[in-house]
């Protein structure tokens, strides 16, 4: 029988099946002679059993069709960029640790279009868009050429770490932004974007929110539409007169980047 000194390290090795077979008897004898180590080993075994039990159900769970479809090549090619937001839950964890912005990630990966509802945020965002997006020379207070200042200023005023999303992939360039009143006494940041044809959209972001909801809203038929999210401590609307599909794509991209920015 091999003779050597054992240590805590061996508890892990024994547990993980890494202890050479010929050392097993000596290890067991050592464990018997050291009640403290024996208790530790028993505790680790119990914790592992609890972990296994907690996760056992996943193995029996039917595999979601979407996962099978990926492998079989039947997956709809669309929506990959948006769906790949699983890491937002990781970001949420960090935010919770940093300062209580958490919670809004729940349900984030399915943005319901065409939701019902009369909503103050959406109305304010649309009103701001109608007022300012039509302005050619005075649409913004701070132009995109001064982006760093714009972001710092709006972040300080609104009380959120704002990063102006890059929407170049969707064909939009930042024009600039401005500060607006929101709700009773809150403030909102409006970021204005423009595409090559001069079509404008705006992002309206405020920290003044205590509800949780999401949806789309149009103040009048044919007018600009808002895709919005509300959450406790955070709300955002994307407003524009784009085809629904395109507005939705822009909104998804903008929202993902805003959330990532806030958590950075």
């Amino acid at each position, binding site marked *: 029988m091999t003779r050597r000194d054992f240590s*805590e*390290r061996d508890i*892990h*090795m024994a*547990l*993980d*099946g*890494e202890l050479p077979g010929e050392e097993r008897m000596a290890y067991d004898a050592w464990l018997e002679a050291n009640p403290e180590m024996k208790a530790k080993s028993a*505790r*680790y075994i119990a*914790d*592992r059993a*609890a*972990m*296994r*039990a*907690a*996760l056992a*159900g*996943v*193995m029996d*769970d039917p*595999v*979601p069709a*979407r*996962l*099978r479809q*990926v*492998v*079989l*090549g039947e*997956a709809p090619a669309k929506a*990959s960029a948006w*769906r*790949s*937001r*699983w*890491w*937002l*839950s*990781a*970001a*949420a*964890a*960090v935010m*919770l*640790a*940093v300062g209580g912005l*958490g*919670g809004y990630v*729940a349900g984030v*990966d399915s943005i319901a279009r065409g939701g019902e509802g009369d909503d103050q945020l959406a109305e304010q965002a649309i009103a701001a868009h109608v007022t300012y997006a039509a302005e050619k020379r005075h649409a913004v207070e701070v132009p995109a050429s001064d982006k760093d200042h714009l972001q710092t200023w709006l972040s300080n005023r609104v009380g959120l770490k704002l990063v102006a999303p890059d929407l170049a992939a969707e064909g939009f360039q930042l024009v600039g932004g401005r500060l607006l009143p929101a709700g009773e006494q809150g403030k909102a940041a409006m970021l204005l974007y423009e595409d090559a044809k001069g079509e404008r959209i705006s992002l309206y972001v405020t920290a003044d929110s205590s509800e949780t909801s999401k949806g789309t809203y149009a103040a009048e038929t044919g007018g600009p539409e808002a895709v919005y999210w509300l959450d406790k401590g955070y709300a955002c609307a994307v407003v524009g007169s784009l085809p629904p599909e395109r507005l939705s794509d822009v909104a998804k991209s903008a929202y993902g980047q805003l959330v990532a920015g806030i*958590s*950075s």
Partner: protein
Amino acid sequence: MDDKKAAILSEIPRLRRYARSLLRDRDSADDLVQDCLERALVRLDNWQTGESPRRWLFTIMHHLFIDQMRKVNRRGEAAMLPLEAGEAQAAPADQVETIASREIMDALQAISPDRRAALVMVAIEGFSYAEAANILGVPAGTLMSRIARGREELRGLLDDTSRRRSIRIVEK
């Protein structure tokens, strides 16, 4: 269906379990698996004949996970999630969780991602130290210290939880 795809399909339940231990939330975990599968299919040619599909797929998924965790934490914020926050981040009730399950899953989320991955890889997924070190891309010594620290951290968190629970009971 070719053999490679069949082999990948049969690994999905394990990938889902690993993802769930990393991310807790069911939909997020399945999204991670989907990303992993998509990447795997694009790189099907990189999969050498004879290499275990399990090891290959776990490596892909681990890289996806760690890359994103680094991005999320790029400003150096602690990856640790305080237990209170973990409890606040209520998991969706897609199935009834026992208190014990919930506590251990919360605690697992609260330990650092590197330790969590190492511990789960060995204790749940049953990889050997050599295999796990290979998948995670770290030396065996690093893997072992992550496992040891991960277990110790997990134990501490669970002790804290039960202490708080008993305090609550006393207060009532």
